[in-house]
């Protein structure tokens, strides 16, 4: 009798625990291989970025399930349109994971536009492309332009692709160069970790940086003075 009670208890406890964590499983973590194309105006100012994120297969399965409305096995642009639209709407709450800084100052993003999504049947992955304009264009001759694309909560793991990770839409003014800073090395991550361990729980990184940003790979535009 008591055995039966214990069995019921164990099952119930298990179910209860899974209920409390089910929200954490409901969305898998997403891995994204990305490219960033800096948008350069005629006057050489940076006006924003066009990002290209190729997400993992598991995400595509979740996202595409049932979207092939005409059942031809191909995901046509119009079948993916709503997905793109809704994704951009939701991403707006996260500032599109696009963080521009000008001489260290956080810059404001405008509303994303020109969203496009394609499905590559060969590798089963979706590629989302969209433009995040800056509210105020930045002049790299005046100060350092820095871009980080990352999820502060690491729900999505963004990583630059190996080939042509950083592009520019137009040639920069002479003397200016756009480059991707190296990924933080294990040593520097360890250093950051050590630094964090010495800080109190109320400590925050400087300049409105967040913890995720401390580990993200940065793209910068610098001009020779």
């Amino acid at each position, binding site marked *: *009798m*008591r*055995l*039966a*009670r*214990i*069995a*019921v*208890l164990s*099952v*119930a*406890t298990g*179910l*209860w625990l*899974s*209920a*409390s964590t*089910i*929200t*954490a499983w*409901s*969305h898998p973590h*997403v891995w994204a291989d990305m490219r960033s194309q800096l948008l350069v105006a005629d006057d050489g100012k940076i006006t924003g970025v066009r990002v290209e*994120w190729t*997400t993992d297969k598991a*995400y595509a399965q*979740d*996202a*595409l*399930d*049932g*979207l092939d*409305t005409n059942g031809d096995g191909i995901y046509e642009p119009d079948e993916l349109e*709503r*997905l793109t639209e*809704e*994704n951009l*709407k*939701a*991403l707006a*709450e*996260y500032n599109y994971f696009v963080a521009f800084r000008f001489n260290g100052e956080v810059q404001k993003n405008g509303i994303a536009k020109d969203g496009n999504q394609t499905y590559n049947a060969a590798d089963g992955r979706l590629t*989302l492309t969209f433009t995040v304009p800056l509210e105020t264009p930045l002049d790299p001759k005046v100060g350092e332009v820095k871009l980080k694309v990352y*999820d502060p*909560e690491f*729900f*999505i793991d963004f990583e630059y692709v190996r080939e042509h990770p950083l592009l520019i839409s137009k040639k920069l003014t002479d003397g200016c160069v756009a480059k991707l800073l190296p990924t933080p090395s294990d040593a520097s991550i360890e250093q950051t970790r050590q630094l964090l361990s010495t800080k109190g729980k109320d400590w925050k990184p400087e300049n409105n940086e967040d913890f995720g940003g401390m580990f993200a790979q940065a793209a910068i535009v610098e001009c020779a003075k």
Partner: protein
Amino acid sequence: MKVILLKLALVIVLFTSFAPAFSFADTAAVNAEQPFDKKRLLVRPRNADGTVEVTPFLQSPVLWARDEQQNFYGAMSRAIKDIHGGNGFAAAWTLVLLSFGYGVLHAAGPGHGKAVISAWLLATENQLRRGILVAFMSAVVQAVTAIVVVSSLLLLVGGAGTATRNAAAFLESASFALIAAMGAYLLYSAFAGHRHVAQPATAGGQTHKHVGHVHFEIVNPIGRDSHSHDHDHGADCDCGHAHVPTARDVSGAWSWRKAFTLAFAVGIRPCTGALLVLVFANALGLYWAGVVSTFVMAFGTFITVSCVAAVAVYSKQLAERLAAGDAKWLGRMGTVMRFGGGLGIMLFGAILFMASLYGPTGSM
């Protein structure tokens, strides 16, 4: 009583554990006219429905609790919305099924007059089918008692609530508060039971003192001393037995009067599980499903009790072995679980209660 309460709590826990499932079942149905399925999105929308990224427990227990609470409440209210939106059949069906399973398992524990009915069958050498009939009658009486008790309670509380605010919201809050109170009681009785175990057990039942726990006495319809039960309280006294007439009280030839007497004696004490299911079903706006569940649960207990009665008739020895106490470590494990279960249910009820006061109840 405490054992029954604990197991009852499990039903809530079981029930709530499937509540989040509704939202998934719902999202699985793809329909162009419906709102966009959030599982498709790269990120979790941080909007009014309250789903947010849960902060890892180790990172910040306070934030974790807040996020989990928010998500849990979100899942609950989505489940309730689904129920109101016509998906209630699935919820009700699950509740009914769970109640049946609960009834079958629960009746294996103390109470429900198994011993009485079996002893009666043995003492009076009545036919097994008569024992089964009594078991059925007592299960029905128990279900009806639970429904009457909870219905009157809810009417009372609801009547008090309508004057000041939305009756449904008030009832919901009251239900959650009641769940929390039951959890608190469970915890209390676990403590009390623990102290009780620490008392050296005296041989025999006569000098046995009821230390630190509450006995829910029933009015004995037969009018005899209800404490003349002839069993021993072991070192780990379950004390979950109903105080029912002994076999001798109803010995003699079969009569409907005696059968009813037995059925009422066993069934008049409402099954705590049924009480909780009803309260919980009410909180979910599924009272009718709670009523059905109560009867289904009674049917489950009836099946188990009948089986025990059958075993008693066919093998007295086997029945005695089944009724004997288990090993000590099992008892200790049970104590630990009683603490955990009581605490869990109390917190659970408290969270829901608070959320119902401050949460977006109005939108449900």
